[in-house]
């Protein structure tokens, strides 16, 4: 029975927090869930479509090449290390570590993206060519859209941290930016397997 007025004093608690306790971290994870669901459904639809036709791809269209996309995984996965360093720096309010991590992330992600553009350019089909073209371009387009968005956001964060225009909110931004990037790296791997290996493996059966 609590009948007397009671109080719970919270003035001693920190006025911010840079960790998975922050609501923004949860928001970012949920957005990753949304996009992850979308990509997984699209992969399922892609494989479903592949299994419903006999000839894949249509005569005249190539399978996407394997070499460059596979090599591009190296800078992509390493770029997540940059994100990790930056987010640890953000938690400790270590400015140089944030700058180093964000820059490492940006440079490696840019190398990955440049390799993707070269490979993409070498495809001999576009989205209008056939159903394989529609899916490959959709995967590359959607993932690139996210990657470019995150590169711009990382650039803005680097500007904020270098210029000193940053506070707890921007540090939290660095932390959740790493969550976005981990997601974009992780989701690319099943997409890569689906579009570069999936049809080939199904072919050989």
């Amino acid at each position, binding site marked *: *029975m*609590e*009948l*007397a*007025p*009671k*109080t*719970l*004093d*919270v*003035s*001693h*608690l*920190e*006025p*911010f*927090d840079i960790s998975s*306790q*922050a*609501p*923004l971290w*949860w*928001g970012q994870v*949920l*957005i990753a*869930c*949304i*996009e992850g*669901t*979308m990509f997984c*459904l*699209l992969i399922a*639809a892609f494989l*479903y*479509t592949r299994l*419903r*036709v006999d000839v*894949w791809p*249509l005569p005249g269209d190539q399978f996407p090449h394997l070499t460059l996309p596979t090599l591009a995984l190296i800078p992509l996965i390493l770029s997540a290390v940059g994100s990790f360093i930056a987010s640890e720096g953000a938690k400790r309010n270590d400015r140089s570590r944030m700058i180093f991590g964000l820059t490492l992330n940006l440079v490696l992600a840019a190398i990955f993206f440049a390799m993707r553009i070269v490979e993409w350019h070498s495809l001999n089909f576009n*989205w*209008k060519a*056939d*159903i*394989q*073209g*529609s*899916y490959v*371009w*959709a995967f590359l387009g959607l993932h690139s859209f996210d990657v470019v*968005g995150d590169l*711009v956001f990382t650039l*803005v964060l680097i500007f*904020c941290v270098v210029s000193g*225009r*940053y*506070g*707890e*909110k*921007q540090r939290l*931004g660095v932390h959740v930016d790493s969550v976005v990037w981990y997601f974009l790296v992780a989701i690319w791997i099943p997409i890569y397997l689906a579009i570069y290996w999936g049809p080939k493996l199904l072919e050989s059966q």
Partner: protein
Amino acid sequence: MATQDVSPHIPNEHAELSLLDRVWQNGRGIFGWLSVTTHHAIGMRYIVTAFVMLLLGGIEALLVRIQLAHSNNTFLGPDRYNEIFTTHGTTMMFLFAVPVMEGMAIYLVPMMCGTRNVAFPRLNAFGYWLYLGGCLFLYWGVFTNAAPDMGWFAYPPLSGPQFTPGKRTDIWAQMITFTEVSALCVATELIATIFKMRAPRMSLNRIPLFVWSILVQSFMTIFAMPAIVIASSYLLSDRTVATHFVNPAEGGDPILYQHVFWFFGHPEVYIIFIPALGFVSAIVTAHSRRAIVGYPAMVLSLIANGFIAFGLWVHHMFATGLPQIGEAYFTASSMMIAVTSGIQIFCWLATLWSGKVRLTTALHFVYGFLVIFVLGGLTGVVLASVPLDLQVHDTFFVVAHFHYVLIGGALFPLFGALYHWYPKMTGRMMSERLGKINFWFLFIGFNLTFFPMHILGLHGMPRRVYTYGPEMGWDNLNLLATIGAFIIAIGGILFLVNVFWSRRHGRIAGNNPWEADSLEWAAASPPKNYNFEFLPVATSRYPLWVAPESEPASLSKAKTQPDRAVVTGLRNDRREVLVTTLMDAEPHHRYVLPGSSIWPFITAICVSIGFIGSVFNPWYIISGSIISGLALLGWFWPRKLLELEP
């Protein structure tokens, strides 16, 4: 953390209150109105906009019923009829039912959780503007003779470029994009609010059932909406940039569209009706004045509903020719939903049976819900069975079924909820006498309209035909349904009269007119922008009913008490709230919410330019992304750094 037995120490209460008022004040003028980020204002905008859509959708329904009132009617031509029934379905599903539930949740959840706003107030404003954009875009199409005319689920190949040239389908598909982005914004911010901003001590087993229902609904939105993103993008890109996703000539697959659409479409139905189950639980608890029977069973049923909803979409596709194992699986999973819904119905009945029932208008609507929803559930079991489904597929039996579950399962609880929470939203009571008349008009009108449709369906009347011959013998039942539709319309008008009359002349409500249990009733009516002077502490599952933890709470045990435990030590000179831990809601840190901002509106305008433009020229996807990106930069640009100092 222990609470201490002292009164809140307030050196200068008046000054603190005026500080709170000032910090949480919304701006003035049109600029201020566009910059609002408080959850009451945004929630109310959702509700009002959704009711405008309900009126439009209702008028379309009446037009359909007039056309079908007798055989060989020529009131609407076949093309116009296609447009009207498609716009009716689209409006009711995407622009009324989902958004109105979101609006109620945005309004109520922060108060029920005992906090001051949603976790992401500006995202909330952004979501509303996009929803409004979707409404305006669809009805711009309707009023410029470009209404969609291919049915609310837009199956290809009918909806493809070959059979529906022009922009009708594109406008429909892009309207979907507007509403899905809006719904995802709402789901994200509500989950973050419920997980991280609950009142201290509101552990998972003390969350009000309405908040549980919104949590489940929001997670369903997060996992279902991406499917409609894909489905509508298939349509749009096939139509505008000549991809082949659902084009069988180039290896695409129209059946895949149905799978993807219904992987969204079935959970969508539950996204509409699960919040309504939350309304029912709240109303039943408050008006039977006792704790809900079987709280754990109720929560588990809600969660199970959420999971099962993703495993039964194929029952919409039984007529497409499926492998038998698929048919058997989806029949079983569809019937399973009757178990989790049945558990909840029995819990409500037991609560009502053993409570001190006060027969208010809100409770009338709950009784109406129980009757209609159970009938709709029974026809649902019929439709889950493949041989029966094949007999009545695409007939009026299906129309009857889904109106029973959606109007009975969502609209009746919604009306009940509005009667229940209207005093909180406006500070005045609605007229109970008019409310009961309103209820009986809706209840009788509803059954008169939709019950005959079961029989019409069994007699073979197909959906979506604009007329029928006199030799079919369907005239009388159709006329009955049309008369019923007008009785529903009168009921709707009575509701609006009650809303507007009570706004002026209703009895003053006070904070807790129903002596209800949950925290929103501790706030003023109508609530201040900051909701609570001191954030509350949830000392039990029914924080406004005080009872020893060992005994079931009920109003008879104790009066609702004014001296509740509260939180002190939050700063009032900025929009500060408390973040608590996920499971036990122990205080973790303080958190400053952003204030009013024009940027959500500007960003929504930029995004809308991209969405609408891309229907006419694909390059708008690029230019729209660039201007939206610039707007987001403005949104996130660091400004008041000093505000961030502890």
